[in-house]
């Protein structure tokens, strides 16, 4: 509910700011500079600062059509239908797939001059070597969030993801309702690579998830997990780091832990589709998103780790919103952490197994 109110307020705010700004337009002519004055942006929900888009619209005298996708797969299907967007924000594995299927165009590094401000350790990753097609937006891990009043911190730290097998926490946990995230947890709990193709390991992971289902009867949820954990309906869950940063800042009983056995390291990045109607404005937009003030506002609002190094550092400093917040401080170069690579064959297999776990 809180989320809903937040979104509606955001919409209202956007509507009012654009309405107000109509009277005092600046003289900038986007048609002359970019050859177009409408930008179509496609992003995940709750993933942008509340004033970011209106500020861009005012600065450049353009209109931004902002649409939301529920999952990377949804976005992919939309692209296949020849829908036209100028900027997308998919995840690493999807970017890799989009590049290999020639859906993207290279970004213009002459325009994106703020590229140098990005944290060096998150550049040049396997999903897009040399960052030819993509510019990092947010990044982070997947970790365990728990309520320190009801869950023993020693258990979480000792067992890592295997804490989900502890029968004494029956009825207290959430699991992420997605085959990718759940199997990632299972693979790492068992000490395997999440990119395994080994039949026996997949079977073991499946059985691990069945065991979790039997031992602690978790509820399988997606975004509801955020509010439910904050409201202390349940005490233990697997969450994305940015959500954890927000959750721990809302409720001081919550703590976040990254298993020593390793977890998922993920990147979301801005890309420009090959069929974009307005690539020059798209490049300008990407550059705008990387500018210090915009990135600061953006990251502070959504809670995910900014790709802009100075912004992330400021937000973690004693003046920032995420001071001493270990969830915001994403773990990048840890030897057991992995990027979960796209694998079409594996994906179908995991999807079927995941349905089986849930349907038991």
């Amino acid at each position, binding site marked *: 509910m809180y989320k809903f109110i937040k979104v509606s307020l955001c919409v209202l705010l956007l509507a009012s700011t654009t309405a107000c700004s109509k009277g005092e337009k600046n003289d900038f002519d986007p048609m002359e500079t970019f050859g177009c004055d409408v930008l179509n942006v496609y992003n995940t929900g709750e993933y942008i600062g509340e004033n970011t888009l209106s500020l861009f619209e005012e600065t450049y005298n353009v209109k931004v059509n902002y649409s939301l996708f529920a999952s990377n797969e949804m976005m992919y299907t939309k692209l296949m239908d020849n829908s036209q967007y100028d900027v997308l924000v998919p995840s690493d594995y999807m970017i890799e797939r989009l590049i290999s299927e020639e859906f993207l165009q290279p970004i213009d590094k002459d325009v994106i001059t703020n590229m140098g401000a990005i944290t060096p350790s998150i550049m040049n990753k396997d999903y897009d070597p040399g960052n030819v097609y993509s510019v990092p937006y947010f990044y982070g891990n997947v970790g365990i969030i728990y309520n320190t009043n009801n869950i023993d911190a020693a258990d979480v730290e000792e067992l890592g993801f295997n804490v989900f097998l502890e029968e004494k926490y029956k009825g207290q946990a959430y699991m992420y309702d*997605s085959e990718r995230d759940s199997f990632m947890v299972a693979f790492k709990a068992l000490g395997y690579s999440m990119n395994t193709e080994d039949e026996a390991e997949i079977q073991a992971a499946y059985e691990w998830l069945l065991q979790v*289902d039997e031992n602690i009867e*978790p509820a399988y949820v997606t975004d509801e997990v955020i509010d439910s954990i904050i409201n202390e309906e349940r005490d233990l869950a697997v969450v994305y780091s940015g959500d954890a940063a927000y959750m721990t800042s809302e409720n001081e009983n919550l703590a976040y832990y990254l298993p020593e056995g390793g977890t998922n390291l993920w990147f979301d990045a801005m890309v420009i589709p090959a069929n974009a109607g307005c690539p020059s404005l798209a490049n300008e937009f990407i550059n705008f998103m990387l500018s210090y003030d915009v990135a600061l506002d953006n990251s502070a609002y959504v809670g995910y780790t900014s790709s802009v190094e100075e912004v992330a550092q400021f937000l973690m400093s004693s003046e920032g919103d995420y001071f001493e917040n270990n969830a915001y401080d994403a773990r990048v170069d840890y030897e057991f952490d992995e990027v979960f690579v796209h694998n079409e064959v594996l994906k*179908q297999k995991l*999807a*079927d197994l995941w*349905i089986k776990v849930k*349907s038991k």
Partner: protein
Amino acid sequence: MKSFARLAYPYMFWISIFIVLPMLMIVFYAFSTQGNDVLTLQFTLDNFKRFFSDPIFPMVLYRSLKIAFMTTIICLAIGYPCAYLIAQMKEKDQTMMILLITLPMWINMLVRTYAWRGILMSTDLSSEIKVLIGMVYNFLPFMIIQIYTSLAKMDKSLLFAAHDLGANKIKTFLRITLPLSIPGVIAGITLVFLPAVSSFFIPILLGGGEYVLIGNLIENYFVASGDWNFGSAISLIMAVLIMASMFLTKKLDYGNKEG
């Protein structure tokens, strides 16, 4: 009269664009392989084989039919007496009662189900019972209104005639009221069973994600895994089943009229 027929054209257009075409696309997806484009079209039965080769999918289908069936029976058991009592009331009270029954429907179904989530979350009921409660609550008004409508338009003089001819109350009900209300019952059953069998947000919200129905399977394969072909195949299997059950209930209706 003929000139009025033209008024149907916009509707025909609407149907063909928003109902027939999407249906055809589902059939098309269900029989083709993933990542197909028009140039390298490949038809296959694999999606259906996949559905029936793993016991989990038919089991989910069975579970959906079972809970939809139970929902329908419970709605009928509560709805019929309710509709009957309302139909017995004074005309003014009837309008009031029907208003009261439709009143909750002014609020979005999703919001009302969220409210139930708040109520049921802390109870120890099984997910199945929680989902069942949610479904009965959401679909009961459809049953009551359908049965009430057919009872309300019944010719009351038939009841007096039966009474005059010596039939007692039970006999009057069994021989006159019940048969005349059957069309309403059939319509009510259809209106409850169809949304119940394909519902996906009630099990998500009230079943805690661990109670998977066929609607969730379809949603899962479309949205989460992006496997539109398998999702379409499941939709098609369900559509065929629904059509078969509609056909059966229609048969029941006609059979009743003949007898």
